[in-house]
């Protein structure tokens, strides 16, 4: 029973990691760089809710959710327009350093506004649902549901719409896609919009589940990285499975390691994958594609 509960906790956590990882890998697939500032989209999405709930707007939690997501999307697009687009032709390390700087800037700006302390949403206290020894809370169910809906939506987008197919083509081969006249700009916006939306949604759910702090984005970014690398950078379904794997592995590890080593698992996965199979478990020939 103990292990089953850990598995449930793991799948819940994994769904959110999958959301983050998919966003990160979409950006990598199309733009070919590791966006270190992705974590801050998570944090700003979560804190965005507080921003809209505070005066002068004073919205209730429910009404503040959509504006918060929109804020994150705007932020993601702004980052691209102001920082990443001018660097499109630079090498990957320059982009990585710029994204590290951006992440530092956004995290500090958030601390400037909200302080460095732990905060939480003004939610009431409710007992979870239980079956015998197992329990799960409403928010945890929402996390899984949200991941299913968003990722399901993404699947439809990628396979059924023209934009989605264009996205896949661009991530396969950006030069050729440009020559073929595919709408690169729209694809770019879509990717940033989706990545930011997924990040913000995940961040808000995490905030509802536990609490918010300025470092929550960075902490989850590492898990997203691990998932992306596990699944093969650029591979959306790899990222999804990678996210679930990391979530489950983390939570099961508590049974053998001390809880203080929980975060260690994601890092260890990163190191092991990079050393043994850098292209990821699900890499296909000519990897880097969004399949």
């Amino acid at each position, binding site marked *: 029973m103990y292990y089953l509960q850990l598995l449930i906790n793991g799948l819940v956590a994994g769904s959110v990691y999958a959301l983050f990882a998919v966003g990160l890998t979409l950006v990598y697939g199309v733009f070919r*760089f*590791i966006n270190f500032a992705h974590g801050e989209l998570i944090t700003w999405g979560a804190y965005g809710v507080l921003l809209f709930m505070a005066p002068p707007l004073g919205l209730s939690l429910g009404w503040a959710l959509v504006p918060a997501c929109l804020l994150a999307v705007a932020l993601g697009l702004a980052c691209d327009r102001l*920082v990443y687009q*001018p*660097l499109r032709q*630079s*090498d*990957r*390390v*320059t*982009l*990585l*350093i*710029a994204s*590290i*700087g*951006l*992440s*530092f*800037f*956004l*995290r*500090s*700006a958030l*601390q*400037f506004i909200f*302080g*460095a302390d732990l905060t939480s949403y003004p939610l009431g206290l409710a007992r979870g649902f239980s079956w015998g020894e197992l329990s799960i809370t409403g928010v945890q169910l929402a996390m899984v549901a949200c991941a299913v809906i968003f990722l399901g939506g993404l699947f439809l987008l990628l396979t059924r719409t023209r934009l989605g197919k264009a996205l896949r083509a661009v991530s396969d081969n950006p030069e050729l896609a440009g020559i073929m006249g595919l709408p690169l700009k729209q694809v770019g916006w879509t990717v940033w919009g989706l990545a930011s939306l997924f990040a913000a949604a995940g961040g808000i759910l995490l905030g509802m589940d536990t609490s918010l702090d300025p470092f929550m984005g*960075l902490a989850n970014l*590492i898990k997203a*990285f691990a998932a992306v*690398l596990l699944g093969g950078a650029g591979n959306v379904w790899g990222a999804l499975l990678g996210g679930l794997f990391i979530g489950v592995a983390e939570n099961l590890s508590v049974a053998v390691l*001390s809880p*203080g*080593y929980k*975060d*260690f698992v994601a*890092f*260890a996965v*990163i*190191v092991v994958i*990079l*050393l043994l199979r*850098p292209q990821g478990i699900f890499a296909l020939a000519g990897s880097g594609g969004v399949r």
Partner: protein
Amino acid sequence: MDYLLRILILALIYVILSGSLNLQLGYGGLYNFGHVAFFAIGAYTSALLSLAGVPVWMAMIAALLAAGLAGFLIAFPALRLSGDFFGIATLAFAEMARIFLLNERWLTRGPLGLPGIPRPTFTGQGVGALPLFALFTLALAAAVLLLLRYLESAPFGRALKVVREDEHVAQALGKDVLWLKVRAMACGALLAGLAGALWAHYVTYISPHDFTLETTILVLLCVVLGGKGTVWGPVLGAVLVVVFQEVLRFLPLPAQYSRFIAPVQGMVFGLVLIVLMLRRPQGILPEHRS
């Protein structure tokens, strides 16, 4: 006067730290984003040994050897990765090290940290005994800079720069690329360990919270801002960063505003990194191309 000495000592430690990163990043093109791990290994080794009664100078030597060894061991597996993935791997390694330091209480006292670290006997133990410690740090920093200057023009340094520019050319010229990179990593790590040991004996209290990603970002900023690939670039970067940090702390702000100092520092540093990458990725001091 004493406050100036404190800033000087901090700046000199950062000079050593950024010089060591520059050896890997600037000369060798190795984007090591886990540099703080070597800093931490140096600090903890020297602190633990000197708290156990080992004379400080011996503890410091052990510290730089331990850090150098870590750099050497990390190099072999990590160097098979390219550019940004190498950066991610080293970053992950540094965080793993920090989590280890945080959890293994029997060894490091975990989050409780190590208080009461002694100063070297010849510099005096009191908090106010700064002048001798400052001289000691200055001597070490000067030695490190001389070493880096020598390496830059020595065959090792020149070969390293060829590797940085184009590995294939280097290989065609008969250079053992992997061995060169490993030596760069080990040497850089060793010097970072020295900086760590110095720092531990200066502040007299360390804990895992001092060795986070933020420190790596700061050192990266020093190197990239000042001008990577040169000897004086990281020195300039270190001085600018440390002075800026301390000046901000000195501002006569009323107490209730002191919580804004750290975020403002962070925003400025982040912006500087971004602007640098956008406008002048080579940093302030350009490298001479021979």
